[in-house]
């Protein structure tokens, strides 16, 4: 469950969907009797020189699946790197189980990271790669444990082929197996569904759901709304380094429908069509262009119902209708700009 509210009393409400997180909750105090969130991000900013990758982001996350949704370059990976201690925030505090993974080596043993980059120790077999993960987590029976988690991700522990010769999808599964080998409390997976075929994707999503339902905190990043929808998760929308919205998939879908839309219609009489739709208040704005007309509307459903009857009444031909901003990028842009 994602929550951008404060852990200590009194917890302020989570920002409504589409609302930027404009408050900076302090990290829980050491003597807090309230349970520490599994993941806590408090007023975090990360800059690389003049480029601000993450800007004043705050949220807390508990057990279950939470998706970090945003376009490429939004700051998701930077945020994940800070959570795992791989990078230090320029400002703010990042905590896993109440600890800073950058300073506290022990807490890293409770994190499972699936990094975005494709790199593996290419000369090792999958079994050897995961065994290295098990040994470096201090597990007692690394060979058996490695074989066990490879089975969980549908890979053969007996395969001697080096992982350098694996397909992208198999490499993703090797990374996931290595991340699960220590039975972590917090699993951080950066674009884990990239490169998987539909069957593998379905299996992986089911595994994430299973892990989430077992009480683990599963943080998954993605730039694909449909993937996030299938995870059935809470969503943190991050765009241009800022936390743009929180909620579940349905909240986000509604947001996509409720925001202003722009539609291009190719027609033989753009002026007549534009004037009539404006007169009936079905369109909020009209722009006549060379091959048709562009409409702005906040009620996409009413627009869809009205356009054909109006065209028939005016005896105007509709040659084409294209939504100009029906993609996730435009939603992100809208969230950031509003």
């Amino acid at each position, binding site marked *: 469950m994602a929550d951008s509210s404060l852990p200590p009393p009194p917890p302020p409400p989570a920002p409504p969907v589409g609302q930027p997180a404009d408050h900076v909750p302090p990290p829980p105090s050491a003597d807090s009797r309230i349970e520490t969130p599994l993941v806590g991000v408090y007023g975090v900013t990360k800059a690389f020189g003049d480029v601000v990758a993450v800007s004043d982001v705050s949220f807390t996350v508990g057990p279950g699946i939470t998706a970090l949704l945003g376009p490429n370059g939004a700051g998701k990976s930077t945020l994940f790197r800070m959570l795992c201690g791989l990078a230090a925030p320029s400002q703010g505090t990042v905590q896993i189980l109440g600890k800073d993974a950058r300073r506290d080596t022990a807490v890293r043993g409770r994190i499972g990271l699936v*990094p975005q980059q494709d790199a593996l120790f290419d*000369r090792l077999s999958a079994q050897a790669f995961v065994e290295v993960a098990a040994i*470096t987590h201090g597990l007692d029976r690394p060979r058996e444990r490695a074989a066990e988690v490879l089975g969980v991700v549908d890979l053969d522990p007996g395969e001697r082929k080096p992982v350098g010769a694996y397909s992208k999808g198999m490499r993703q599964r090797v990374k996931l197996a290595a991340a699960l080998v220590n039975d972590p409390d917090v699993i951080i997976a950066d674009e884990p569904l990239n490169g998987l075929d539909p069957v593998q994707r379905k299996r992986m999503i089911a595994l994430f759901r299973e892990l989430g339902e077992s009480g683990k905190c599963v943080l998954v990043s993605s730039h694909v709304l449909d993937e996030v929808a299938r995870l059935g998760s809470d969503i943190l929308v991050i765009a241009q380094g800022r936390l743009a919205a929180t909620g579940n998939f349905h909240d986000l879908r509604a947001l996509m429908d409720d925001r202003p839309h722009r539609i291009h219609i190719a027609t033989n009489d753009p002026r007549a069509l534009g004037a009539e739709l404006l007169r009936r208040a079905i369109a909020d704005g009209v722009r006549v262009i060379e091959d048709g007309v562009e409409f702005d509307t906040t009620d996409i459903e009413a627009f869809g119902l009205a356009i054909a009857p109006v065209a028939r009444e005016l005896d105007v031909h509709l040659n084409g209708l294209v939504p100009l901003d029906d993609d996730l990028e435009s939603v992100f842009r809208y969230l950031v700009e509003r």
Partner: protein
Amino acid sequence: MAGSVGLVRSTVVVFRVLLGQLRSPARLTGLGLLGVLSMVISWSVGSGADPSPVQHLDNATGVITLFTFTLVLPVIALIFGVGALGDARDDGTLVYLWVRPLNQISVVFGAWLAATVISLPLIVIPAALSALLLDAGSELVMATLVASALAVVAYSAVFVMLGILSRFAVVLGLVYVLLWEGVVASLGSIGAKMALRGYANSIVTSRTGVRTELANSAESTSIIIFAIVTVVALLLAAARLATLEVD
């Protein structure tokens, strides 16, 4: 489920992984040829005109210190030392060591062991064979063996550290080897003290009695300096690794 990771166990696993990563056929072949080249040069000098035994020993020692110790040894140590952690940093695999509950000392120590173990045979065997082919007596062979082995240990530590400190470690390393040790060090005693090659040459001088470039220490001093340089470089590398931003 996870437990604490012992220093020895984690060092061994890091060593095994990084040794495997360093063992690329192209790198082994290229650097192996450098060793072969040193042997060919030694053979040609060894089988050439022989003015006198003393002159021959001088010439033979010159070949070892001016070619093997100036070029072959530091360049091979540089490629493997920088590559041990630098490659992992560049290709993103360092993440798999960094996010684990490991002491950074074990990561650096494992990397240094890997670099040293892979460099040693590629440096020491051709160096010793070169000394043999020069046919200048067993003293030069033993001196070359001891000096090159000790120097590899120290050079590897310095270059492992450099691989963590900079993304341009190979270039910086070459500047140190070719410019500092090759040119600057010969201009004054302070520069010579900061050249590892001087301490390797000192061991050769101690054992053969032949005066070599930059040699101005006793053998025991050279061994102590190599040990200090190794420990300090590894500690600095571990400290840097702990604060490194890993991609």
